[in-house]
């Protein structure tokens, strides 16, 4: 939203647009409006009278409060968090608000990305002010309507939990909803002062906990209706391969198999039940056309490509400050080290799945995804229907972590529905999920750091070698964000034109983010050199920070030890430009007992990192016995601005740490002749309860607006553990996953 545009203008304008879309003309009385324009489920299509101030909120005359949640709930807590901020200034208990996953509409676009997507820890940051203002303005209109119909002045009216209080009477908001719908606000209503908060900042249970503790929360995979077939898809073992020829005779002869169809990236079996489809798949014979570049890549030999790039002369400059060459020559001491992080899969607990029904030019999609808008575009393209004929029903996501920002599985499902002519639910196996992910890119980095006589950093040079995410994601995104005036053919050419079209425009910021920003140095030089084996890439929780924080924080530890300085004191000397980071470092040092002698052979490792506007410091307590690494405890301090729900912030820190520990201790995707070698949880293991450390979270009390918390808890942990291992053993581990046995 344009800062200079008042929310009340926007509110009035969006209301008019909604009324227009709904076929209503003239005034604001919302009578029997079909909400299908942005309804998530058929249950939303109730024709109730009431007040729909904008796309996000509908108050019925029966005093029901419907919130159309613009962002996806994938575990990070938006369902509770966004509802809480809306509820605060609306003055309605969040538990009394009926929450719907919004479908696709321009009203729900994420302003940071220009499309309807959930990611980058942006949800709370973007909606904290706007949803509070919506709540405040809506309440003001309800009060105006109440004053008018009760013939009292607005000053005589108070509100409490969805009730208008006047004299000794309490009347539900809903009674004034219709009248409120005819009124307009002259200017934005005032927001509550923080000390009047009833819901924000309080420990309140998650609003989705009940459904998720009773098996009644509906995920994409739970969609079912009469006549729905199940589909499974055989893809080329090397990503990007296509079908040369196939023989379906044996598969077609099996019980329950309805059809076998070829689509853009494989051959699908469509059957009555999943189990039948799954069994029939093993009887398919397919000959593949494999992509050359990726087929030629194997991890054990391929690492040499990254090393050559790190040693080579071909690079782009991503960031430059001062004169790093000169400063390195003048340095009292220069320290160089190379770091490595492998490819990683997301491994959401719910495997990718999507349900598509195409009938008479209309397409319905049921999916839990991070971008319903991209899902809509892909369903239109692969289902061969107009985009405005695609309706997306959003459901809970059984994990996102960036995986469901991509919608490849939606395209597959639409293609299978189109080719088979029946409604289908495509369900990926765990093996599909592990071997056909969009992966966290493998990365190598070389630091060359100059220090002056006092042990201060005078020059910070870092070069990163590896593939970039953007070329792999932009083809889906173009479809979603291309201006409406572009002809479809042109959009398809741009978006499906292939990898090369968007290569080399600029350095992809996600490739270098986090490598250089946190610490002071007069001279900084960030270089990038692209090495791309061709494995599809995507956004993996905390994106570039997932590797850069490990590299940078390990390097800081190395520098401190090289110059005989305490790692915490060394960091504090270099955070003059970063008071938030300074504060979390100090608090974490204090809370963890930093500086005390190791007890019971448990050693501490320190790490701190800023990402997604939040500063986080972590101290890991680690012991090493017979080369076995045990993480006993993690102390975590976060400054994420104002806290909407402290328990959810803590839960997200725990979540980020545990997700990060899986990567730090176990995570590695490797390839042989382009084929991903891991397939399921036995060879791509996850942290389980017995391995999970005690986690202690401290939240900084801050007056600033909230940042997101879904990602910032992850980046520091690998460095904290590696630095603790160094403290315990004197061994510097510069590769992930961390391992001491050779």
């Amino acid at each position, binding site marked *: 939203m344009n800062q200079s545009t008042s929310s009340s203008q926007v509110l009035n304008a969006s209301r008019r647009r909604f009324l227009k879309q709904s076929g209503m003309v003239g005034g604001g009385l919302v009578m029997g409006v079909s909400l299908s324009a942005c309804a998530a489920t058929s249950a939303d299509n109730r024709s109730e009278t009431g007040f729909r101030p904008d796309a996000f909120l509908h108050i019925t005359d029966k005093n029901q409060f419907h919130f159309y949640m613009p962002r996806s709930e994938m575990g990070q807590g938006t369902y509770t968090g966004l509802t809480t901020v809306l509820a605060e200034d609306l003055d309605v208990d969040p538990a009394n608000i009926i929450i719907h996953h919004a479908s696709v509409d321009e009203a729900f676009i994420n302003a940071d990305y220009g499309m309807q997507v959930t990611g980058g820890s942006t949800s709370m940051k973007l909606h904290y002010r706007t949803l509070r203002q919506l709540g405040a303005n809506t309440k003001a209109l309800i009060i105006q309507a109440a004053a008018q119909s009760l013939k009292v002045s607005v000053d005589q009216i108070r509100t409490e939990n969805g009730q208008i209080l006047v004299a000794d009477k309490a009347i539900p908001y809903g009674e004034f909803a219709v009248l409120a719908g005819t009124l307009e606000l002259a200017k934005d209503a005032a927001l509550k002062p923080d000390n009047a908060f009833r819901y924000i900042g309080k420990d309140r249970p998650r609003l989705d*906990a009940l459904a998720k*503790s009773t098996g009644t929360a509906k995920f994409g995979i739970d969609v079912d209706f009469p006549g729905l077939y199940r589909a499974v898809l055989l893809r080329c073992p090397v990503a990007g391969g296509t079908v040369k020829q196939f023989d379906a005779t044996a598969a077609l002869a099996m019980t329950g198999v309805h059809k076998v169809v070829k689509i853009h990236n494989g051959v699908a079996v469509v059957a009555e039940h999943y*189990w039948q489809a799954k069994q029939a798949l093993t009887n398919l014979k397919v000959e593949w056309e494999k992509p050359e570049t990726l087929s030629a890549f194997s991890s054990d030999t391929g690492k040499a490509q990254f090393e050559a790039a790190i040693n080579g002369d071909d690079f782009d400059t991503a960031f430059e400050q001062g004169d790093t060459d000169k400063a390195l020559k003048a340095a009292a001491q220069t320290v160089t080290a190379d770091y490595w992080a492998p490819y990683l899969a997301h491994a959401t607990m719910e495997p990718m799945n999507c349900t598509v029904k195409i009938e008479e030019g209309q397409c319905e999609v049921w999916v839990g995804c991070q971008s319903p808008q991209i899902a809509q575009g892909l369903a239109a393209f692969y289902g061969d229907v107009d985009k405005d004929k695609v309706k997306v029903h959003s459901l809970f996501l059984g994990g996102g972590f960036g995986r469901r920002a991509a919608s490849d599985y939606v395209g597959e499902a639409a293609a299978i529905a189109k080719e088979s002519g029946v409604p289908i639910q495509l369900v990926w196996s765990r093996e599909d999920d592990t071997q056909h992910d969009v992966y966290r890119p493998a990365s190598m980095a070389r630091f060359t750091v100059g220090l002056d006589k006092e042990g201060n950093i005078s020059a910070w040079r870092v070069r990163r070698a590896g593939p970039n995410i953007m070329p792999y994601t932009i083809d889906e995104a173009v479809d979603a964000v291309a201006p409406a005036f572009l002809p479809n053919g042109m959009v398809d050419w741009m978006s499906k034109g292939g990898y090369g079209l968007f290569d080399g425009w600029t350095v992809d910021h996600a490739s270098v983010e986090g490598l250089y920003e946190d610490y002071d140095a007069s001279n900084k030089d960030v270089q990038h050199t692209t090495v791309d084996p061709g494995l599809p890439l995507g956004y993996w929780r905390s994106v570039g920070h997932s590797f850069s924080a490990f590299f940078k924080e390990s390097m800081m530890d190395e520098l401190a030890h090289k110059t005989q300085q305490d790692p915490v004191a060394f960091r504090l000397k270099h955070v003059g430009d970063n008071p938030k980071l300074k504060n979390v470092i100090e608090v974490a040092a204090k809370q963890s007992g930093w500086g005390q002698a190791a007890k019971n052979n448990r050693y501490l490792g320190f790490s701190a990192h800023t990402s997604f506007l939040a500063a986080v410091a972590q101290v890991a307590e680690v012991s090493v016995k017979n080369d076995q690494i045990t993480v006993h405890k993690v102390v975590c301090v976060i400054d994420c601005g104002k806290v909407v729900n402290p328990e959810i912030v803590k839960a997200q820190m725990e979540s980020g740490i545990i997700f990060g520990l899986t990567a730090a201790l176990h995570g590695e995707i490797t390839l042989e002749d382009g084929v991903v070698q891991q397939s399921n949880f036995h060879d791509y293991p996850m942290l389980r309860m017995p391995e999970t450390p005690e986690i202690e979270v401290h939240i900084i009390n801050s007056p600033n607006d909230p940042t997101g918390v879904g990602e910032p808890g992850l980046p520091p942990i690998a460095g904290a553990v590696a630095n603790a291992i160094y403290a315990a053993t004197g061994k510097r581990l510069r590769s992930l996953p961390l391992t001491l046995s050779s």
Partner: protein
Amino acid sequence: MIKFKLNGQAVQADVPGDMPLLWVVRDHFKMKGAKFGCGMGLCGACSMIVDGESTRTCVLPVAAVANRDVTTIEGVGQPEQLSVLQQAWVDESVPQCGYCQSGQLISATALLNKNPNPSDAEIDQAMSGNICRCGTYPRIKQAIKKAAGQPAVNVFDPKGAEA
């Protein structure tokens, strides 16, 4: 035709005997609480209680449960009538994405039914077959301890489901 008890009710299914119980329950009986996660019995999302034991049903042929007692999350409790453990799950805000939580609750229920006051190590052991990618383990443990501390030992009542 395979007969067994599902959440206290006698049921029968005309399905191949080698079809995993998970898919019989999800696709045939249309109960969607138990989830598909890995298909190899490695993650626990599909867990159901079979004769008192938390069991991975994505690899369990339905023929193996003939004449046996199967309890799914739907049989543990309902939104309007939560088991002690489910209430603890809500109070501790355990779920995040929530996908694995049916399986987690099944394993925790089986544990407390057999061992009403488990030690930390016993909880770790009993829950080690259930993966949570969101990392809700600290809260799961907290919720189990909270429920274990309560006088109501029965974390769910299979006879109640039968009535």
